[in-house]
């Protein structure tokens, strides 16, 4: 019955403990995502967007509830198992790009393949292809500080795509970019979506969210609205 869902979140709660104080960041989230959906998560600051993304991205585990990713219950897995799943299934795009500053674009892009245990020849070749796919074929040996913000985010997108993940997660991917560059990046994501990828992105900007096909609005750790964009 759940087979046609890529993501199944059921009654997800996440409580952070800060000293003795418990901070409830998510208070019961149920959400289903099909393959090749393009979903934007919106909401005011502190509403739990990043927390939700971290859970979906298997960077963290929920305090309560179950999370099934591609048919596999991942809500109670060990550190190392989660690492494997992230490596195989999820591509991350961060607001601050998070590239290794001392490594060139090629090396940054091939990183997930390193942790997949792929030999260097295959890594290099795939990384070149992925960079070419985001329009950076001529920037393979540039370091992050030799690239513009938009180019850096493209490198990050190439990195997210390289291991053929089931899911691309982008937490405010345009947050550190000017609007023109932001549009460019959104165009790249659009293209990726058209090729059949599933994308979940977090954004503050209504016009960015409009690019998605579905918008989930969070408020105080709960889903306030979940609409398909017409």
């Amino acid at each position, binding site marked *: 019955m759940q087979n046609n869902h890529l993501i199944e979140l059921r009654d997800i709660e996440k409580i952070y403990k800060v000293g003795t104080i418990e901070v409830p960041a998510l208070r019961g989230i149920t959400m289903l995502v099909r393959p090749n959906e393009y979903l934007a998560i919106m909401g005011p600051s502190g509403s739990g967007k990043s927390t939700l993304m971290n859970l979906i991205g298997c960077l*963290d585990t929920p305090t309560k509830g179950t999370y099934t990713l591609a048919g596999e219950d991942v809500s109670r897995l060990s550190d190392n198992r989660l690492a*494997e799943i992230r490596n195989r299934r999820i591509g*991350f795009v961060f607001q601050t790009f998070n590239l290794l500053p001392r490594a060139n674009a090629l090396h940054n892009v091939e990183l*997930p393949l*390193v942790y997949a*245990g792929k030999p*260097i020849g295959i890594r290099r070749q795939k990384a070149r292809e992925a960079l070419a796919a985001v329009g950076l074929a001529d920037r393979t040996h540039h370091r992050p500080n030799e690239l513009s913000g938009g180019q850096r985010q493209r490198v990050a997108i190439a990195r997210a795509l390289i291991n053929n993940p089931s899911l691309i997660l982008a937490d405010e991917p345009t947050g550190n970019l000017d609007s023109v560059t932001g549009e460019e990046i959104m165009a790249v994501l659009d293209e990726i979506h058209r090729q059949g990828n599933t994308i979940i992105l977090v954004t503050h900007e209504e016009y960015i969210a409009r690019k998605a096909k579905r918008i989930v609005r969070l408020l105080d750790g709960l889903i306030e609205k979940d609409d398909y964009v017409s």
Partner: protein
Amino acid sequence: MFRFIVEILEGLRIAFRALRANKVRSVLTTLGIIIGVTTVILMTCIILGLNKSVAGQFAFLGSNTVYVNKFEWFSHNWREMMKRPDITLEHMRRIEEESELAVAVSPWAETQRTVGFRERKLSRVDVGGTNENYILTNPARPEIGRFITAADVQHNRHVCVLGYEVAQRLFPQQNPLGQRIKIGSIPFRVVGVQERIGKLLGQSMDNYVMVPIGTFMKEFGRHHWMSIIVKASGPQEVENLVYELRGILRRARHLGPLEPDDFGVNQQSSLMNAFLRIMGGVYLGGFLIAVISLVVGGIGIMNIMLVSVTERTQEVGLRKALGAKRWMIGWQFLIESAVLCSIGGVLGVGFAFLGAKGVNGFLPTTMPPWVVGFGVIFAAVVGLFFGIYPAMKAARLRPIEALRYE
């Protein structure tokens, strides 16, 4: 397995990249390791060198030889021993008469004097008194001229045989044979020059002159430290010879059965043993210094690796987000620590090499290739050990916290 190799290569690449970014800091933190490895290697080189040269040098004392002295070598009970009677030529005569195992017997008395030829003077030269049998008891050969003869001894002639170095320094141009030199203020005629022996523990063994024993006693006093050198027919006879000599000496001294020896019968092997004991002490000292500096160095490495982990929390978070497992992250920092220390090890070996060259003037050293490998690997092991804690710390970082870290 294949995957493991990929990981090792990747770890090395990351380590070198990180170390290149912090060159100065990297070298500074390895200082302790450098000192430790330098000490270990230098000590090893000196000890290997000493052992090699000393084994050869002691042979010159003669392996089948026994020394009858006033004291046991390396005994420490000085007050008791100062009361002992001297060894005299009379004892030597008794040994010559009574011993059946002795192949050759020679006396040896020794002092230091200034030796001069015309205006040239050498101070503190060892002056030895002996007889013609010395070339039988000791492997001493004349290079030119002849050794002291029975006639020289019988007539208390003022003739002398020069050690190689004395000959070189007193007679840089001329032939020393037949020349008159002064030992102290007494004139002697040079009849021979001995073969070169070389150095022992950095001291020249060729800085001596030898004169007939009777002449020695007449001119330089009845010396208190006279000893008798007795040669056995072979190594297996040495123990028996010692036993026999003790009997002869005890009879000569009229010692009762319960009285202890009041003389020493010493063997070359006891000198070697004492040397080894001293070297053991030297080695232990060097070893302690090395261990201390390696521990201090290792803690320095641990410290800098902890700093490195903190500085690179975001990097660790990112790598984990992209699928790095705990051991992969830990491995990365372990390799970095080992590489850092190996660099210290390489530098340490380099300094030890220079140091070995430096001390070679007064201490013999050898540096076999395995010592180089040993130094570097040892440093790497220290790095691995002190890298464990920082590596574990890095490996346990939780990805979300690491990514949030500013």
